[in-house]
């Protein structure tokens, strides 16, 4: 059965609070935290980028469970902030985990769902026995234009999932997707920051596709929200996942472990992957986890995942590396000036 063999997360230690960003732009912090349900977001260190985050997440995954890296036959990594426009992050990750050279690889972009698209690809390669293991990573050092709404939530982080058939700690029973051509949020080549359609990103964007993929999965599997222990949704803020969970029939308790955006921000391609990782961090054998990502442009990938006994076995050491909760602890807070320096928002002498 195809499933998750091991997983790992990396969240940089730096944070900036919503109230600090609001201070600079003369906005009302309480309005923003009240409206978005986000209080602070993660910020990369000066020497971190999406690739270093992807590598650390992958290495964390491999520290929890022994896998011969030479058996990893595929590396697919999804991000909106690949360090190069041309030169794959997947190659750097593959090299850094010792999987090269006998592997296939490519970089994905599909806004915030590039990571779950990578999971689907790895599932296909594993299921068809084209590879033994496939590594899928969703990660970002998300950018938001100064003073734009996105600046309050655009965060940094990533989660890596090793997909295989041999004794997974969670079986992925089913996946399906709902994809349309919808211009809700985009970034043209050469542009520094993304743009978005404001309120258009809600109903025609996020809600249409998350509901579409979720209902498609219920239809295809015969399952409904009550069959699941937990649910993880893409989380650009805290309100959207709470609202869509309610609409679909999930309870607040079901989405609680996977709802990390209030303290982490929106890690874009890392968002639902990190939400899934946070849920796996506390899951028990038999728990059933529903996941639905969303990427602007637009599309959603839904998954029906069931945790196996292997999660508590000797072969998987969940505590070998810090989980999501532990990585959210002990943050280092930055003021806006240092945040801007970290995010490359200051115009330097070229």
């Amino acid at each position: 059965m195809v499933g998750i063999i091991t997983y790992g997360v990396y969240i940089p230690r730096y944070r900036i609070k919503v109230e600090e960003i609001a201070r600079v732009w003369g906005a009302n912090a309480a309005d923003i935290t009240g409206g978005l349900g986000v209080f602070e977001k993660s910020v990369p260190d000066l020497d971190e980028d999406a690739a270093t985050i992807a590598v650390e997440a992958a290495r964390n995954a491999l520290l929890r469970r022994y896998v011969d890296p030479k058996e990893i036959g595929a590396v697919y990594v999804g991000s909106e902030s690949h360090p190069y426009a041309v030169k794959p992050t997947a190659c750097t990750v593959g090299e850094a985990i010792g999987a090269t050279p006998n592997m296939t690889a490519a970089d994905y972009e599909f806004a915030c769902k590039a990571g779950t698209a990578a999971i689907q690809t790895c599932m296909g390669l594993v299921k068809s026995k084209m590879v033994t293991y496939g590594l899928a990573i969703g990660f970002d050092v998300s950018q938001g234009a100064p003073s734009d709404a996105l600046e309050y939530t655009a965060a940094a982080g990533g989660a890596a999932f090793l997909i295989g058939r041999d004794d997974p700690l969670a079986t992925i029973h089913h996946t399906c997707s709902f994809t349309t051509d919808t211009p809700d949020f985009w970034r043209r080549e050469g542009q520094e920051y993304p743009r978005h359609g404001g309120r258009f990103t809600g109903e025609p964007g996020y809600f249409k596709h998350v509901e579409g993929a979720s209902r498609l999965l219920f239809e295809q599997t015969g399952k409904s929200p009550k069959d699941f222990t937990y649910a993880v949704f893409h989380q650009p803020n805290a309100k959207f996942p709470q609202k869509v969970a309610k609409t679909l029939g999930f309870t607040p308790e079901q989405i609680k472990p996977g709802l990390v955006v209030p303290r982490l921000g929106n890690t874009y391609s890392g968002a639902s992957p990190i939400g899934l990782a946070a849920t796996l961090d506390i899951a028990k054998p038999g728990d059933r986890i529903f996941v639905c990502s969303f990427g602007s442009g637009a599309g959603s990938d839904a998954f029906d995942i069931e945790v196996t006994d292997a999660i508590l076995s000797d072969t998987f050491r969940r505590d070998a590396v810090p989980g999501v909760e532990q990585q959210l602890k002990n943050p280092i807070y930055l003021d806006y000036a240092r945040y801007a320096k970290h995010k490359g928002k200051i115009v330097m002498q070229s």
Partner: protein
Amino acid sequence: MSVARFWRKIPQRYNLIGTRCETCGRHFFPPRTFCPDCRRNGKIVDHKFAGKGTVVTYTIIHTANEQFEALTPYVLAIIQLDEGPRMTSQIVCRPDEVKIGMRVKSVFRKIATDGRSGIIHYGTKFVPEE
């Protein structure tokens, strides 16, 4: 640094791949293909260092070379890897945190870039081991 010079050392920079002499047990980083002690009797094999070590000495760089200006002040240290060899590296920590004898472990970071359009040099730095 040219692309070829950087690329040639990627196994060392990303993964701390060195060598060890199976005959006498001595480890080498950067890798040596010839054991200076055993000489022709030395059997050299690849060795991936665990990335754990101890701080031998350090400084806080305030005036850096151009590529590293944005990072100042940063910690530069000589670290003794547990297997024996020493190496020079940055440590990602507050300047007041670093101490001689501190235990550190390796992490993957961006070392430098070749300007705005050149390649990115990734490599290994260290952080304090909790």
